[in-house]
Each structure stands twice: as structure tokens, then as C-alpha cells.
């Protein structure tokens, strides 16, 4: 994944209808995500040596001395925004295209949460309770096992600044720009509709990668 280019959406803008509308997807991808990419690009022009880090490693470097102070906030916000959105597009897909968690992931979910329903209920609560802008995550913890977390703004579980770090398996954007045109103030309605477009094949692959210590993007 290029640090300085907008990745194409892996489906058409209307692919997630009726749960996420084409206009929202278009603006979200071509305007919001593009702006994060542009801002990362701008910051790296001043520090070209950081380009070798790549998208995952630059996020892991947030909050460390590897990122010069002058661009620390820009990289935290925009490097975070670039990773989060690149990841987010891939964990979604056409409704009805996917079958749910693999038996491996299902076993891990049962072990950490009791059931898939319980995971969903905790994940929904994390997304609904994130005050202001941010994300809800399902992460693979460094010691093994799954957890649900939430981060503010464009922070993510790769960044050392967050309360609970880990490797993202599934993520949900709860910035108002992710749902406002269609759902207005009704964030919980957006969250429950969103489960219809979760691409479990990708989530399963993310889980397999995470077990090996690889960060999916």
C-alpha cells in the first residue's frame, strides 16, 4: 500500500447500497481519504527519508521519536486517516457476498466474547459510545486473543499512543461523514446496517495474518 497514493475502492461506489449510499462512498473516498493522502504526501516532501517506512510502519512510529516533532500531529492524523480508510474499504463488500467468520475465527470469537452476537453487541456499543469522531475496532492482541476497542479521531490500534494496541481485524468508521447523508444523527442505525456489508472473507484473512504477526492493510 503506497503511502502517497489513494488506493482504488475494491468495488463500485454503489456496491454497498442500500446500507451505505453511493454519494457517501464517493465523497468519503475521493474527498476525505484523498485529503489524508495529500497531507501525508505534503509532510513527507519535507522528510523524504520517511517514505521508506510504508503505511503500516509509519503508523507504528506515531508517538515515537522516528517521526520528527514538526510533522508528528500531521502524521498521526493523516497517516492514521490513510491507514484506517484503506483498511476500512477492504473489510466491506457487496451485501450477501459473505458467509461470516471462518471456523478458526469463530472459535477465537467464542473464546474471547462467548458468541458472535456478544461480539457484535460490544462492538456496536464501542462505536455508539465513541463521543465525537473516531473508530471502533476488533483487534488481535499481542498475547493472543481478541478485543474490542475504540479510538478517537484517526488514531488506530497500531499507534503507540492508544490505550489498547493490537493488530486490527475489523474496523468501523464512526465519524459523522461516514453516515450523515443517509442516517443523520442516527449513528446506531448506521452501525447495525453496516454489519450487512462486512466482508468476512477479508476479516478471516486479517485474522490469519494477525496470528502470524502480520498487519493487514
Amino acid at each position, binding site marked *: 500500500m503506497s503511502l502517497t497514493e489513494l488506493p482504488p475502492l475494491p468495488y463500485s461506489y454503489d456496491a454497498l447500497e442500500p446500507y451505505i449510499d453511493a454519494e457517501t462512498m464517493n465523497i468519503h473516498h475521493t474527498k476525505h481519504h484523498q485529503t489524508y493522502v495529500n497531507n501525508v504526501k505534503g509532510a513527507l516532501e519535507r522528510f523524504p527519508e520517511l517514505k521508506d517506512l510504508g503505511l503500516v510502519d509509519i503508523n507504528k512510529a506515531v508517538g515515537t521519536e522516528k517521526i520528527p516533532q514538526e510533522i508528528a500531529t500531521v502524521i498521526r492524523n493523516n497517516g492514521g486517516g490513510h491507514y484506517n480508510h484503506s483498511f476500512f474499504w477492504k473489510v466491506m463488500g457487496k451485501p450477501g457476498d459473505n458467509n461470516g467468520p471462518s471456523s478458526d475465527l469463530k472459535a477465537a470469537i467464542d473464546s474471547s466474547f462467548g458468541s458472535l452476537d456478544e461480539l457484535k453487541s460490544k462492538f456496536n456499543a464501542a462505536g455508539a459510545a465513541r463521543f*465525537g469522531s473516531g473508530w471502533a475496532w476488533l483487534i488481535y492482541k499481542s498475547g493472543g486473543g481478541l478485543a474490542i476497542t475504540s479510538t478517537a479521531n484517526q488514531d488506530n490500534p497500531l499507534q503507540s499512543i492508544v490505550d489498547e494496541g493490537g493488530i486490527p481485524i475489523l474496523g468501523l468508521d464512526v*465519524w459523522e*461523514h461516514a453516515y*450523515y447523508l443517509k442516517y*443523520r*444523527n442516527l449513528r446506531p442505525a448506521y452501525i447495525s446496517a453496516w454489519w450487512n456489508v462486512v466482508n468476512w472473507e477479508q476479516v478471516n484473512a486479517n485474522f490469519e495474518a494477525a496470528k502470524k504477526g502480520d498487519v493487514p492493510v
Partner: protein
Amino acid sequence: MATMLAQTHAFTGLRLMQKPRSTGCSRVRGVAARAELELKPLPFANDALEPTISSATLDVHWGKHHRAYVTNLNNQIKDKPLANKTLEEIIVETYNSGSPTPEFNNAGQVFNHDFYWESISPSPTEPSAELKAAIDEAFGSMDEFKKQFKAAGATQFGSGWAWLVKGKDGKLAVTKTPNAENPLVHGQTPLLTMDVWEHAYYLDVQNRRPDYIESFVEKLINWEKVSERFAA
């Protein structure tokens, strides 16, 4: 409300005769001290801010978001000592020196929205000579103030607010705050605010926050109200 009070007193009277338990007492004190906080009506018509802010935006922003903050806060503080305090007192107390308690977000947002609507005028207004002089002194010129205020709104990453405040030193300053935070918790006096949560402008200009800011600052600021706050 009158019926409710009568019933409460009648109920308390009965309990008094039977030695009241403390829960009964605190409930009566809560009711007697202050009615619930209310959603104040908008100080202008729903379509008065078109085209900068549409009636569709105001319907949701005031009718849903602002209303929910008021309802949630009332539910959170019901029957608690906080119910006897003013909104400003609740904000400062629940900010808890930077480790906010759950009530803070709703209390901050009730204040911020009340303050935001009153910062807006559908028709052109002018700052008082005194405010104008203070702005010139603090920023060099009105244009420079506007530039700084617009920049504060544009650079508040995520959800939040831009402010013109009078600091502890009495000088004017432009600030920005995330989410529900506001100048009261920093000991400053707010004079003007602009909401830059996405819900304030997303139906009208989507991702183009700078367009909303430009139009808000040039067309909607209620300078009479800001002058009045400055003089107070």
C-alpha cells in the same frame, strides 16, 4: 408539573409520618431546587440562515442533536446533587480537572449549542466601538481576527468548536476545543463560538468545512450579541 409537585408533597407527608427514608428526602430536594433543563427554542426561524445553514440541518442539529444532549443530561443528573447546580457549575465540576465524568459531554454540548445559536444573526450586525477597539488591540484588525478564527475552525481535527474568548488576563484570544470542551473549563469567558462538528455543515457542504466557515464568519455572526457579552 404542578400535579407532580402536589403528589410528591402528599407522598412525602405520608412518609414523614412513617419516618422518611433518605431516598424520599433527596428526591424532594431535587424537585424543589430546580426544574429540569429545557431545550431553548432557536432564536430565529428554521429557514432564516439559508443558504449558509439549511433548515434541514437545523431540524436535525437543534431538533435531534441539541435535544438529545438536554435529555441525556437530565437523565444523568436526575436525583443527584448535580441537579441542583447551574449548567455552568455542572460543566466545571464534571470536567473534573481534565478527567471528565460521563455528564460532562452532555453538559458541555448543551451550553455550547445554546451559546452557538445565540452567536448567530440572520441579518447583518456590527460590533460595538469598544469591542472593535479590543479586537484591533488583540489581533491588529478585524480582518486578522477573522483569519485566525477561520483557521481555528478549519484546523480543529475531528469534532469541536472555534471560540473568541476573553482570557483571565482580560485580553481577547482565538481558541479551539475538541468535542464538548469549552472555555469555561479553562477559566476563560466565551464571547463567540462556531460549531465545527461535521453535523453542523455536512448536509449543506459535505466535506467542504472551509466553505461553511467562510460563510458563517462573513454572514452569520451576531456582533451585537458578542458586543453585549464583551461588555458584561
